């Protein structure tokens, strides 16, 4: 088990290095000149200005030197200076990331907490009303486009029923909670500021549900399918023949085996939620990474793009590591 963990960790480090190299190379070879994008047509027509500008940002150095600078900066937590905002990329990311992580994590938990029990219930009571509901939920969640769902939810729960507040993370006149991590739910809860907590939570509800829909649909469907398969395995029949109660048969014998594919999917889904929230963030005026990414890409802001891509790949690596370790916890055959 220990060796398994060590191997996973080591391979994650190697993958991270490779990712940094690939990211660096790609951003160097994409067509599109940041000089042109930043200076504008008039200034860019002056070779002296261009050369000076290139020297300032180190664009005149050989490729490998630049990679080395990039890598050593990276190890010191330096992702460079954003060309567009003129601020350290790390600071930018630190400012925008918590909003996205909070949104994605709440969506993810929502999808798990609803999706797994729903999938299990649908499999156990196959062809019942629960099953019909589960199938409807998964079909709707997977097939309804996010922007459409977002507008419908805003129209119904904000515009018509008035149950939910409008876009944004907090009431426009409210101040962010103290604590400084940027995770509003966490900060306000730690401070005991329940008014802000409530405000943040109600603002989070709609975008979280909208973002969770697709993941919820997938998780429900996968859990249901995996459970149906496991419930027909011989060991489930053996467990019944032993005189175990149905609840023990389902939860102890079938569910644990069924969770393996759900974990795989869950890992991918969480990484997707973190990086794929652009649409939801835009509609709900959510100041998160998605919007930052969009702005940086439009401005060909290479340091920012590289920084974001690195953070994203690091997230994927981390999530993958967690998934791999969960496999080992769930399935002893993996531990070698």
């Amino acid at each position: 088990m220990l060796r398994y963990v060590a191997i996973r960790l080591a391979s994650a480090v190697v993958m991270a290095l490779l990712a940094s190299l690939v990211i660096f190379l790609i951003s160097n070879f994409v067509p599109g000149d940041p000089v042109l994008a930043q200076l504008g047509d008039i200034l860019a027509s002056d070779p002296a200005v261009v050369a000076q500008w290139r020297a300032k940002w180190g664009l005149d150095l050989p490729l490998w030197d630049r990679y080395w600078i990039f890598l050593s900066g990276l190890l010191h937590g330096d992702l460079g200076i954003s060309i567009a905002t003129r601020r350290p990329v790390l600071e930018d990311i630190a400012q925008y990331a918590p909003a996205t992580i909070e949104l994605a994590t709440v969506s993810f938990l929502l999808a798990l907490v609803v999706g797994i029990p729903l999938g299990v219930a649908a499999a156990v009571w196959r062809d019942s009303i629960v099953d019909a509901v589960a199938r409807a939920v998964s079909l709707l969640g997977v097939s309804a486009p996010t922007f459409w769902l977002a507008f419908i939810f805003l129209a119904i729960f904000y515009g018509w029923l008035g149950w939910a507040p409008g876009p944004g993370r907090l009431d426009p006149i409210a101040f962010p909670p103290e604590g400084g991590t940027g995770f509003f739910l966490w900060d306000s809860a730690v401070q005991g500021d329940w008014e802000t907590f409530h405000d943040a939570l109600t603002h989070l509800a709609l975008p979280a549900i909208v973002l969770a829909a697709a993941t919820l649909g997938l998780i429900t469907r996968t859990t249901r399918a995996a459970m149906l398969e496991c419930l027909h395995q011989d060991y489930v029949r053996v467990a019944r023949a032993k005189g175990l109660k149905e609840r023990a048969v389902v939860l102890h014998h079938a569910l644990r085996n069924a969770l393996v594919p759900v974990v795989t999917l869950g890992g991918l889904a969480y990484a997707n939620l973190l990086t794929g929230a652009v649409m939801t963030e835009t509609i709900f005026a959510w100041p998160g990474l998605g919007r930052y990414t969009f702005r940086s890409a439009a401005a060909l802001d290479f340091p920012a793009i590289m920084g974001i891509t690195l953070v994203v790949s690091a997230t994927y690596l981390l999530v993958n590591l967690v998934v791999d370790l969960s496999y080992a916890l769930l399935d002893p055959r993996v531990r070698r």
Partner: protein
Amino acid sequence: MSDAVLHVRNLVTVFHTDAGPVRAVDGVSFSVGKGETLGIVGESGSGKSVTAQSLMRLLDPPARIEGGQVLFEGRDVLTMSPRELTAWRGANAAMVFQDSLTGLNPVLRILRQVTEHVVAHGRMDARDARRHGIELLRRMGVASPERAAASYPHQFSGGMRQRVMIAMGMANDPTLLLADEPTTALDVTIQAQILDLLAGLNEKFGTAIVLISHDLGVIGTICKRIVVMYAGEVVEEGPTADVLSDPRHPYAWALANAVPRLDAPIADRLPGIEGAPPDPLAMPQGCRFAPRCPWRIERCGTERPPLAAVAPGRLARCWVTADGRSLPPRTVPAHAKPPESSTTEPLLVARDLVKHFPLPKKSFFGAREVVHAVNGVSLHVMPGERLGIVGESGCGKSTLARLVTRLHTPDAGHIRFDGQDIATLGGEELRQLRPRLQMVFQDPYASLNPRMRIGDILAEPLLVHGRARTAAEAGERVGALLDMVGLNPSWAIRFPHEFSGGQRQRISIARALGLEPALIVADEPVSALDVNVQAQVLNLMLDLRERMGLAYMFIAHDLAVVRAFCDRVAVMYLGRIVEEAPARDLFAQPAHPYTVSLLSAVPEPGRQRVVLGGEPPSTLRLPQGCAFRARCPVAQPVCAEPPPPTEIAPGHRVLCHAPGSFKGMP
């Protein structure tokens, strides 16, 4: 029958399929006395497993129990409430399933699986249950039970897993143990160990056992009484010895005689009964066996016979024997002429073949482990000869088959086929060779592409190798091939799933025959088939040999089948041939202790058996000296040296320091 533990009356279980209701169990009645052993035998689809699962009410929809009573010590299991049912299952009656790989939960520790129902039924607390579980494992012969208890199923061999399954069944000391094909997936020597274990449980603890199997030999070694099922009905019931020696139902007769036996005279044909079980959606109106029955009388086609007494303590469902007469004994045709004198050149010669498979490295610096599959095998096959290769799983027989057909390339050694050295052929030359050297695989379900029509499957090799130039020409050949293997040529448009296992194996044989091979290497071609179908396929292979002058290399784990089919037999152990002889000599005078034990382990009623302890050693580390030394009942210090090959009679070669020194049990 007042002391009956289990009394089944008119049990009816129906599968509600899309095509209509299938009465898988149709009015089955029998009873099991206290401490009795009852065998239920029948081929796949006869309803024996469905019966067992109905008794425990383990079936899922679309199966439904639609009638009858299952009285367990007077209480009807079928009318128990869900709560009563869970309290009864696993406590008073337990079940052991066929496949211990899928029957054990892969993610739970052995101890938990063996004892969770002891705790759930409130017999013991967790601490006592733990001690009880380890004791149970010890009693079932699981090596180092404490470590085993903390392990997971995938860390065990099939035999050990089956012991765990039995420990699980016995955990609450049940009155009745239902065992559904408990040894079918195991090697003969391991099967013998498990059968001994079951018999011991019955003797020591008085546990009543219902043993379900397709193998009469297995049933015969344990069970005093036997129930024969066919097409969802009980067709015969009686003391095992009587049913085997004097079957009163034609199907029981076929079962008893279709099984090749080690102690029967060698015949050229196995007396199987042609045909297949009836379509369960359209059962014959009269006797369900009538369409296949050689002794059919007029009444059989119109009136369904009752299960009636034909002799004291014996029941049969047959109009022919209803008046108490016996069925005619099996006629043994004289053995055909011995194989032609071997003056000709051998068709295939293999010398010192070696094949090792390196495993993926476990750690970066660790040594790479190697599976020593085949370690220096030499053999030859004469034209038209049938060479049998026998051995337990892991002995390298399948790898050997793949080496001589060049699906694998040997690491060392030579193979001459038809005068050509083929050990290192590649590319086009190898392709040229393929038609002459064909292979038939074990699993007729996996070796036919499910998305191709049978006609296309058979035509493909003909077109690829230029035996037919046009699709129409190939179509004609396909028709002839199907006819040759006893299938209707018009079935060429069907897909594989529309055929039974036996029919599929005929198709596999037809595919191999299409290219007019000189040698067919058949890897366990009949081991997935029911005995009766097995006899049919073996007879077909014999016919084809006579008609086309084929030679066979026939790989099997079933010794009796090899004895019935082969001219010459080689016994493999750990990648080596330890004994090789003409079939007659080998079975009459086995000289290697392993061969003796292997023959002795075959379950046949009324025979004393040697039960070999332990399991074949790992192929990762080959033992020094004689490979069989660790399990050998007569091992000597000298066995630490590599044994010399000795020829003890013409063509009878043994790899042993003291051939013939072990004779088996007195």
